[in-house]
C-alpha cells in the first residue's frame, strides 16, 4: 500500500506545467533579487568595504574575492537567474546561479538570512528537474527537448521542501514566548502604529497575541490547505494576505515575494496551463505541438533517486532539530539556530566590550570594534557567540601583528532577548581566543539564560 503510494508520489506521470511556471516565476524573482542587491550597493557595503569576514565553520576556505570578482559573482547570479527564468541553457544557468549564490553566502555569516538559505535550497533542487522542457527558450532552440509529462517527483520535491519550511517555522512558534507573551510581536507591532488604516490596531497588546496565534496556525496549516484542491484558492489568498502583511510590517526584503512565487507550485497543472497559454500570445511558437510527450527519468535516477531524495530530505528534517544536541535556550545560545527555518522569532540586541591583555606586560585595554569590523558585522557579532569566538581570534591575530604574542581576549557582553532586559551573556573571565569552535560542542562560556 505505502509502496504503491510512494511509487505514485515519485513516478506517476503528471503534467509539466506547474514546474515550468515555477521555473519562470521563481527565476524572475531571483533575477530581481540579484539586481536589487547590486543596485543597493550591497556588494560594496557587505563584501568590498569590510576588511574581515566571518566564514562558516568548515568553510573558512571560502574567502572574499576582489571587488571585480564579487561583482562578477553577482553578475553571474543575474545571468543564471535569467537563464532559469527563460529556460535558456537551463541547467547550466541553475548551476551557475547556485554556485555564485552559495559562494557569496558562505563568505560571511553576518549576512545569513533564512530566505537566502531558502533560495540556495530551492535552486539546488531546480538543478535536478527538467523544468526547461516546456515553455522555454531551450525548446525553441531544440524542439526535441519538449515534454509535456514528467514524473511526479520533479514537482513533489518542491512541495515537500515548502512543507518542511512552513511546518518547522510553525513548530518553532509553539512556545510560551510566542504564544503567551506575544514576543517579539509585542515589541515590533507598536512601532508600526502610524501606518495608514492598519496602524491604529497595532499598539494593542491583544493584536500582538492574535497575530502570534494566526502566524503559528498559518505556518502549521497552510501546506495542507494548499494541497487540498477544495481549500487551495482560499489557502493561496491566505498566503497572499500573510506574506503581504509581513512585507508591510517588517523589513524582510524579498522573502514574501519569494514565497508568493514558490507556493504557486501547489496549483494544479490545469491552472498553470491556463496561465501559460494565456501569456503565450507573446510567443506563439511556444504553443505549437502540445501533444503528450513523456519525460523519463534516467535509469540511474530510477535506481538511485529514491535513495538520494531520502537522504536529502532526511538532512532537511534533521537540521532544524539539531538544537536538541545542545543544552540551554536555543534563542539565547543560537547553537543550532541557523538553517532551521526560525523566522522573525526574536528581538535580540547586544553590546560588547572586548578587552585584550598583553601577557608580557599585563596591560589590559579595551578594543574599539569599529577599527576591525563594520557596524553591521559588529551588530550581528554582538548577539552570536560563534561570531564572538571568531572575532576574539581575529583580535589575537591582529594584535600579534602589533607585537603582542598570545593576547588574551575577554568580553563583557550584554544581551537582551525578547524584552528580557540586558544581562551578562558571556563568562567575561574566559579567554575567548583560547576557545575552540566545534560542530556540535556546547560553548560552556555562554552564561545560562534565566527567565
Amino acid at each position: 500500500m505505502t509502496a504503491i503510494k510512494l511509487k505514485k508520489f515519485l513516478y506517476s506521470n503528471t503534467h509539466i506545467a506547474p514546474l515550468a511556471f515555477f521555473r519562470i516565476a521563481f527565476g524572475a524573482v531571483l533575477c530581481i533579487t540579484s539586481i536589487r542587491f547590486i543596485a543597493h550597493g550591497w556588494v560594496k557595503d557587505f563584501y568590498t568595504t569590510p576588511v574581515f569576514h566571518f566564514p562558516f565553520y568548515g568553510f573558512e576556505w571560502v574567502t572574499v574575492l576582489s571587488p571585480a570578482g564579487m561583482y562578477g559573482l553577482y553578475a553571474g547570479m543575474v545571468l543564471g537567474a535569467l537563464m532559469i527564468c527563460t529556460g535558456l541553457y537551463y541547467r547550466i544557468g541553475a548551476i551557475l546561479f547556485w554556485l555564485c549564490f552559495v559562494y557569496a553566502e558562505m563568505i560571511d555569516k553576518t549576512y545569513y538570512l533564512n530566505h537566502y538559505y531558502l533560495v540556495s535550497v530551492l535552486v539546488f533542487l531546480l538543478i535536478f528537474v527538467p523544468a526547461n522542457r516546456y515553455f522555454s527558450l531551450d525548446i525553441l532552440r531544440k524542439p526535441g527537448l519538449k515534454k509535456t509529462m514528467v514524473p511526479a517527483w520533479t514537482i513533489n520535491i518542491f512541495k515537500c521542501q515548502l512543507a518542511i519550511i512552513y511546518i518547522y517555522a510553525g513548530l518553532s512558534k509553539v512556545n510560551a514566548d510566542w504564544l503567551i507573551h506575544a514576543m517579539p510581536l509585542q515589541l515590533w507591532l507598536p512601532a508600526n502604529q502610524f501606518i495608514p488604516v492598519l496602524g491604529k490596531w497595532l499598539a494593542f497588546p491583544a493584536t500582538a497575541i492574535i497575530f502570534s496565534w494566526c502566524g503559528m496556525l498559518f505556518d502549521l496549516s497552510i501546506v495542507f490547505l494548499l494541497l487540498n484542491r477544495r481549500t487551495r484558492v482560499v489557502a493561496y489568498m491566505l498566503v497572499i494576505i500573510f506574506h503581504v502583511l509581513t512585507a508591510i510590517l517588517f523589513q524582510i526584503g524579498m522573502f514574501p515575494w519569494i514565497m508568493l512565487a514558490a507556493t504557486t507550485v501547489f496549483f494544479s497543472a490545469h491552472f498553470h496551463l491556463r496561465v501559460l497559454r494565456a501569456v503565450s500570445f507573446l510567443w506563439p511558437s511556444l504553443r505549437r505541438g502540445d501533444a503528450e510527450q513523456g519525460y523519463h527519468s534516467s535509469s540511474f535516477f530510477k535506481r538511485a533517486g529514491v535513495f538520494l531524495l531520502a537522504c536529502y530530505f532526511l538532512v532537511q528534517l534533521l537540521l532544524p532539530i539539531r538544537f536538541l544536541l545542545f543544552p540551554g535556550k536555543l534563542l539565547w545560545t543560537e547553537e543550532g539556530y541557523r538553517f532551521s527555518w526560525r523566522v522573525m522569532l526574536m528581538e535580540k540586541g547586544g553590546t560588547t566590550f572586548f578587552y585584550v591583555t598583553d601577557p608580557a606586560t599585563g596591560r589590559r585595554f579595551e578594543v574599539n570594534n569599529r577599527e576591525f569590523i563594520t557596524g553591521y558585522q559588529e551588530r550581528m557579532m554582538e548577539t552570536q557567540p560563534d561570531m564572538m569566538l571568531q572575532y576574539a581570534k581575529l583580535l589575537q591575530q591582529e594584535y600579534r601583528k602589533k607585537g603582542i604574542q598570545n593576547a588574551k581576549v575577554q568580553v563583557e557582553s550584554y544581551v537582551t532577548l525578547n524584552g528580557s532586559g540586558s544581562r551578562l551573556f558571556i563568562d567575561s573571565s574566559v579567554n575567548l581566543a583560547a576557545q575552540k569552535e566545534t560542530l556540535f560542542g556546547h560553548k560552556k562560556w555562554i552564561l545560562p539564560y534565566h527567565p
Partner: protein
Amino acid sequence: MKHKTTALLSALAAAAIIILFSCSKNNSDNPNQPASAVDSALVNIGTNIILVSYQDLAAKTTAMDAAVTAFVQTPDASKLASAQAAFKAAYLSWQTCSEYEFGPAADQSLATNTINVFPTDTAIIKNNISSGNYTIDGIGNLKAQGFPALDFLLFSTDNNSALSRFTTDAAATNAKKYLSAVAVSLKAKAAATLAAWTGTYISTFKNATGVNAGSSLSLLVNALVYDYDVVLKTYKLGIPFGKFGATAVPQVPAKVEAYYSGISLQLMIQQVKALQNIYLGATGYGLDDKIIASKAQKNGVPLNDVIVAQFNTLLVKLNALSDPLAAAIVSNNTGVGDAYTEAGKLVVLLKVDLSSALGIKISFQDDDGD
C-alpha cells in the same frame, strides 16, 4: 478523514482572521492609544528639540564668525577674549547638535568626523598657515579644521602666544586668514543644515514613522547611540583616560576634546544633557514615553526608571570632576574612572535595552531582512 482535517484547519484559519479584525475593533477605546496617525515623539523632538538646537548653533556660529572677523581686523586682547567667548558658546551649542548625524547634517558634513576631529593636527594647521595653500574643507584637512582647530588657534598655551600668532608672528596675516576660513566654514555648514531642516526635512522627519532602516526613529536612535557610545565614551573619555590602545602610554590627556581651552568637561556635560533632553523629549513626548508604553523592564524595574536614574548618576559623576579634564585624568584617577564606569552602563542601556524595547536595530544597514 483527510478532508475533515483540512476542512477543520481552513475553518480555524478563517476563524483566526475573523477574530483578528473583530477583536481589534473591540479594543478601540484603549486609552493608551494615540488617536492620530502622527508620531508625537517625532513631532516634538523634531520641532522643539532638533530645530531649536540647529537655530541656536546657526546663531552661535554666526556670532563666532562676527567676533573672529572683528578680531582679525584689529587683533587685540579684548577682541581675542570676545572671540574666545563666542567660540566657547558655539562649541557648547554643537554639543546639542552632534546627536543628529543624519539627513541634512550628513549632507552638509556637519558631523563629528568632519568638524570635531580631536586632537587637532597642529602640524597641518601650522603648515597650512605658513604655506597659505590649503582647502579648508578638503578631505586631508579634517584634522585641521572645525572646533578643534579653533580651540588650538584661539587658545594655544596662553593668551599671549595666541595673540602674538595673529600680531607679531611672521605668518600673522596667513593665520588670520586661516582662522577666518575655519569660522566661516562652520557658520556656512550650520546655516545650510538649519536651512535644510526648516525647509523640507522637518516634514520628512515627522513622516518617516516606524523603525525600519531609514525611518526617523531608527536614524535618530542610531545617531545618538553612536554620538554617546563612540564619540563620548570612547573618544572624549576612554582614549584620553588610557582605556584603549595597546602601545599608547596609559594616559593621553592631550587627546581630550577642547584641550587648549580646557572646557572638556563642560562640553561633555552639555552633550549628556542634550542626550537626556532627547530621551525625555524636553517637557513633551520623547523616547521615554515610548519606553514606558513598551512596559520594558530591566532586572524587574521599569526600564524608563533605570535609564532616567543612569543619566542622573552619570551627570553626578561628571559634575564631581572639574575642568580641565586633561588635568583631572592625571590627578583624579578614581573620579574619572567612576565616570567612565557609569558611562559604560549607559551605553548598555541605550544601545541594548532602549533600542530593543523600541524594535530598533543598531548599525541598521538597509538589507534584505530575514
